[in-house]
């Protein structure tokens, strides 16, 4: 039986252009799908970038302080390393890379590399021990590795100077007496006495900064008073001679006090120097670590999960409350946080009143016309001027002209050392206030113009004066906008670094600009001092560190902190704006 396929009824001529009545189909091209996908793709790319960036920072920032295990790696050419794995990467070793190995090992290594198609994985081990080995990090490729292990007693030591130490405790000595000869015993003894050593060290620091600092301050003040007298009365005057004699007498007393304090310090240091933890590195060298130099130590491979968490949180605590060590690559960023907060506070105190005043003037009091429009355009543009220009202005005008004049008038005795004639907290706040002023003015103006004129007119109709209207009707309703503007300005000011590079942020500030002392007045404010700033800290850590690999994790953590700060500010702005908007929602006519 043949199966014949019936030819379907021929369709009306398909090649001739058909005229269809009624239904018109939109052609596919009209939907513009490709372009649509491109635009959507652009949005998706932007979102991926933001999310990816934040995720990267959060991931790197939060994992910095987690204490990982310590590995011991023995290489084929007999070297031994002990350290934490800081990074891994894959690369194609050049043939000459194998020349480092002893001749008999080369064929095996070459085979190893050939097995993985010419690629090799290498790890960067943080081996520390800079005082012994001369490096902080070591790269080890997989073809160099003989064996790996996690020794039970490898201890990670964070020190006051020279960075980290990785090793095994050998013995613990007090003076000449050895009281712990096994790793376990040495570690236990060390734990017993460590607290006391740290307390003594803290006492020494207190004596050095506060007591000796006080003595030095008194000597300096006396010298300055003498110089002031010299400038006023002249060298040859009798008052000067009398003052000079008095100063000399005072200096003798000061030196006695100085010697007393010094002997106290010496005693404490000598006592501390008796407690020594002797540790051995992976390749057998020994190092003596005074217990007072050890900030934190833990046996990395013996920690339970909860103990690791404890170390993690303690490091975070140190990060947020301590001063930096080791050229900013270890320790904390408290001075930077403090500097950023104080400067931002000072800046907002300056910017908000003046910004609101200027916006009120422009919107309410000035006669609207060409000039005011011109001024408005100018203010708008200033919001877009690069921040570095403001920094230049701050340095040239505030520091070198206004600051120098203040120095000549009030601090002549300290010259040629500038007091206000160089960058400091005050000038930085002024500069940033000027920078964020246009933002506040623009935001406030927008907010003021959003208040419907019907409300103003109603108020006037009830007999209120202009000021009463502004104070009771307009400003409250403009508050959401003003607050938003203020918080956005603060967020911007907290993140600007370029002008601060010129007017006062420094790599390491010896003292905080606000000091809390024990004598009255309890809080002393020094706006002429340089300060540390989180953003500048990031720049400095990333680019001007001696040990940039060790500083990299710290930079991520600082970045995380800065981003968190700014996000908190932004979210607060959005929340406040929402709250206030709802509050006044009903108030429209």
């Amino acid at each position: 039986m043949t199966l014949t396929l019936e030819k379907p009824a021929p369709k009306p001529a398909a090649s001739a252009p058909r005229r269809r009545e009624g239904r018109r189909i939109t052609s596919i091209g009209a939907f513009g799908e490709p372009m649509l996908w491109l635009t959507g793709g652009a949005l998706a790319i932007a979102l991926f970038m933001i999310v990816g960036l934040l995720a990267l920072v959060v991931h790197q920032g939060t994992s910095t302080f987690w204490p990982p295990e310590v590995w011991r790696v023995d290489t084929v050419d007999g070297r031994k390393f002990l350290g934490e794995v800081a990074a891994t990467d894959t690369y194609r070793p050049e043939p000459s890379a194998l020349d480092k190995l002893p001749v008999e090992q080369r064929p095996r290594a070459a085979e190893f590399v050939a097995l993985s198609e010419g690629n090799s994985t290498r790890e960067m081990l943080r081996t520390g021990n800079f005082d012994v080995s001369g490096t902080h990090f070591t790269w080890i490729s997989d073809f160099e590795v003989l064996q790996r292990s996690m020794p039970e007693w490898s201890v990670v030591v964070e020190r006051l100077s020279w960075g980290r130490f990785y090793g095994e405790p050998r013995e613990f000595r007090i003076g000449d007496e050895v009281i712990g000869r096994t790793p376990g015993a040495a570690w236990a003894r060390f734990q017993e006495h460590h607290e006391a050593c740290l307390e003594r060290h803290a006492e020494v620091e207190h004596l050095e900064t506060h007591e000796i600092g006080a003595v030095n301050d008194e000597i300096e003040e006396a010298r300055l008073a003498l110089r002031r007298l010299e400038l006023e009365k002249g060298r040859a005057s009798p008052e000067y001679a009398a003052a000079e004699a008095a100063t000399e007498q005072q200096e003798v007393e000061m030196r006695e006090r100085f010697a007393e304090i010094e002997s106290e310090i010496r005693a404490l240091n000598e006592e501390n120097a008796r407690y020594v933890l002797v540790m051995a590195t992976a390749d057998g060298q020994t190092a003596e670590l005074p217990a007072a130099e050890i900030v934190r130590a833990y046996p990395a491979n013996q920690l339970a999960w909860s103990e690791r968490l404890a170390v993690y949180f303690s490091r975070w605590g140190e990060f947020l409350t301590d001063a930096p060590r080791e050229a900013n690559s270890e320790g904390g960023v408290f001075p930077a946080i403090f500097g950023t907060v104080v400067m931002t506070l000072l800046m907002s105190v300056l910017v908000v009143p003046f910004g609101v005043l200027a916006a009120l003037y422009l919107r309410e009091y000035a006669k609207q016309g060409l000039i005011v429009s011109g001024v408005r355009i100018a203010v708008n543009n200033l919001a877009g001027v690069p921040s570095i220009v403001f920094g230049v202005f701050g340095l040239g005008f505030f520091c070198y002209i206004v600051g120098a004049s203040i120095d000549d008038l009030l601090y002549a005795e300290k010259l040629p050392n500038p007091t206000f004639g160089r960058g400091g907290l005050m000038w930085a706040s002024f500069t940033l206030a000027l920078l964020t002023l246009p933002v506040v003015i623009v935001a406030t103006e927008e907010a003021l113009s959003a208040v419907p004129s019907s409300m103003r007119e109603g108020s006037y109709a009830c007999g209120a004066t202009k000021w009463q209207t502004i104070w009771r009707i307009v400003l409250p309703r403009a508050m959401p906008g003003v607050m938003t503007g203020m918080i956005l300005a603060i967020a911007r000011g907290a993140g600007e670094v370029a002008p601060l590079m010129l007017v006062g942020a420094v790599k390491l500030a010896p003292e905080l600009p606000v000091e809390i002392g024990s004598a009255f007045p309890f809080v002393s404010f020094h706006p002429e001092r340089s300060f540390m700033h989180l953003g500048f800290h990031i720049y400095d850590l990333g680019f001007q560190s001696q040990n940039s690999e060790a500083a990299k994790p710290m930079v991520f953590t600082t970045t995380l902190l800065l981003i968190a700060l700014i996000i908190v500010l932004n979210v607060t702005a959005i929340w406040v704006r929402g709250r206030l908007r709802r509050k006044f929602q009903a108030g429209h006519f």
Partner: protein
Amino acid sequence: MSPQSFTGRGRRRQTRRGVLIAERVARILISIGGLGTILAVSLILAFLLWVVAPLFRGADFEDGGSRVLAASSAGESTPIAAGVDEYQVIAWALGADGVVRAWRLDTGELLREERPFGDVRPTSVSLPLDDGRYAVGFEDGRVRLVHFAFLTEFLDPARDVELAKKLENLERATWNGGVVQHTPEGQYRSQSLVLEVGEAVDIGARSSLLAVDAVLGGGTTRVFAYESAGALRIAEVERKENVFTGELTESVAIHEVRWSPRSDGVAPARVLVGGAGDRLFVSWRDGVTRRYDARDVENVVPVEEVDLVDGEGTLEAAAFLIGRGTLVTGDSRGRMRAWFGTKPENARTADGETFVRTHDILEKGAAIRWISSSARGRSVVSGAADGTISVAYVTSDKELFSSRVEGASGIDAVLLTPKDDGLVAISAGRIASWKVDLLHPEATLAALFRPVWYEGYPEPEHVWQSSSGTDDFEAKLGLWPLVFGTIKATFYSMLFGVPLALLAAIYTSEFLHPRLRTPLKSTVEIMASLPSVVLGFLAAIVFAPFVQGVLPQVLATFVCVPLALLFGARLWSLLPSKKYVQWSGTQRFAAIGLTIPLGVALAWWIGPLAERVMFAGNLEKWLHGGFGSAFGGWFLLLIPAAALVFAFFSSRVIDPWWRSKQRGWTRDTAGRNELLRFVMATGFVFALAAFAAFGLDTAGFDARGGVLDTYVQRNAMIVGFVMGFAIVPIVYTLAEDALTSVPGHLRLASLGAGATPWQTAMRVVIPTAMSGLFSAVMVGLGRAVGETMIVLMATGNTPVMSWNVFDGFRTLSANIAVELPEAVKNDTHYRTLFLAALCLFAMTFVLNTVAEVVRQRFRKRAYQL
């Protein structure tokens, strides 16, 4: 009290006093505060202008008058060397008769006069050495090293009653053969000339030394001398001080230079030593000069011959600038020109260096008699035969001062004082002095913005190199490399950021579900407030090393991701209509979102493949140049061009035909055909690009060396990408605002007429919002121009002018941030940096004003709709 009120209660009809006062006070305070704030903000521009203005002011010269120089017993003689002390109180001159005289500068009183050389006459004198000494050649063929030093002592008038009487009410007085000044600080400072004459050194010459010059090198002084008998000698004089006995020993090593005199037998007029003694110039009066390579004193070889007057006139005066690299010559035609050695690529000399004329400083009428250069900078002063003196700065060819001294018999000697704060001219027994403040001769508009021929460079170039370690450094303040860097950064960041932001804004305002818009806006606001220091840090420390490791993959991503999106769009169109409509919201966006990682994965796979095929296995090495064909580079660059060409061609030729065909298709057929067409188009574009690349490669053109060149880790591509990321939020927010403020009824009308959302967007919304989009782009541009931190951290901060996209650069803003903290207040460098800040300010101000004006007009127009 109103008797007519209903309740009988009265009411005040006057405003309370307090309210009126508050009103007045508020008005005053607000006006002052407001005006003050606005003024403070305009202070910035005024201050910048105030600091920059002195850059272009000429130097200050204050005439101090002229006096007769007291005649001496021995009669007049023309000076062959002269000098002034740093406090400008004493002037000395060594005459051709061998007499050294010192005068008080302000009165012309003769302080000292002596014959330190006995009866021997000096026949020639060298240019001043670095330590201020001169080598003097005598008629007996010997050389002496003479130091015209000044002894500064502080005296106590209390101990010397006579001195006190003399100085009673005067600022200065002659005392003990010197001058004592009462300084503003209240000290009595005495200056006197001290002559330290070295032992006569026998250099083996028996006739008078007609020309001599010397250089200092370590402890050795190298003296080059020509004697009238025709021999040219080099003597190395070494003074050693025995540490134990304090005994000074002088040892002399003499080398004779093998040289051939000129055929016409004329003796050379001058011997000049350049550099540290490695270049010897023997110069005749008619301008012909021979340069010798004197690096090896035992074997001095002639290298080239130059005519310093170009055949016209005679060479009258010559002096080296500080550092002895540049020779300034003055001739009888009144021309003062500068010459130095350059190393051009096609040099035909033995040592690869050619001595070229590089600056034409002056051309005055009268013959130049005397040239002397500053000991601190690159200024020269010349004295002419008609009594004119001119002070000029060599690098910028700027004449700073010109004057005529009376007594027109010509200038005998003219010089700048050691601290460049005074000018002294001796002429016909008179001395004239000026107080000088050179201000900022290095910075003229031409020197800042046009190519300048700096010492040692083969040709005039734009260079920015503002400081270095040595004193004789020539500050190179060319702003063009920095402006070029700014433009490069802006260009690449706009290239990455603007399309991304605009397209994203279009999608958000036209196709995104309104509910998603608010969280999206907040996310983008957060992105906007990310400090740029964070972005810069990530760019430099994370992205740059990463990109360097996966460069082929990254370059492939630029091609693969758009391709994947377009392909995905075609695939999506294949959906049945019902699903297509149902899924046109979130699901489509999710699909778009998924396509991107797929595109990246594709790029990751293609990258190494392409590297192996087109770039000989190593892209970085290929970029460095020297091997591999140029095909790959051209192919990469031509893909976008080919795509554009094809799009144009297809819209003109293929589309009408396609559209006519489309009427006969069902939706499914159309979808499949579109997909096919896309695949074929892609293939065609690649083929076109490959063909063109092949053609260019065969024709011998290579993209390397221009836009593609050696790969530097921190380069323009990285910066463009990260800075693009930084400006995306700004442009996005403003563009989105512009698009959403297009009145809704326009959209609705378009949709009601049957247009698809895309057609509405393309033909109705975007044209209406065009000015808003334009102003958004301008604001983004302004931000990109002024960005500092990202550029500071993610470029190499090298001020080079190269088109290479893989090269570093330095922008105006980063330059200011790096150099201003170190600049000395109010000096040229400081003011030039302020000029850079002013340029930035002007650029962003103009851009923002244009954007603002456009935006205001757009608003007005939109409201009219």
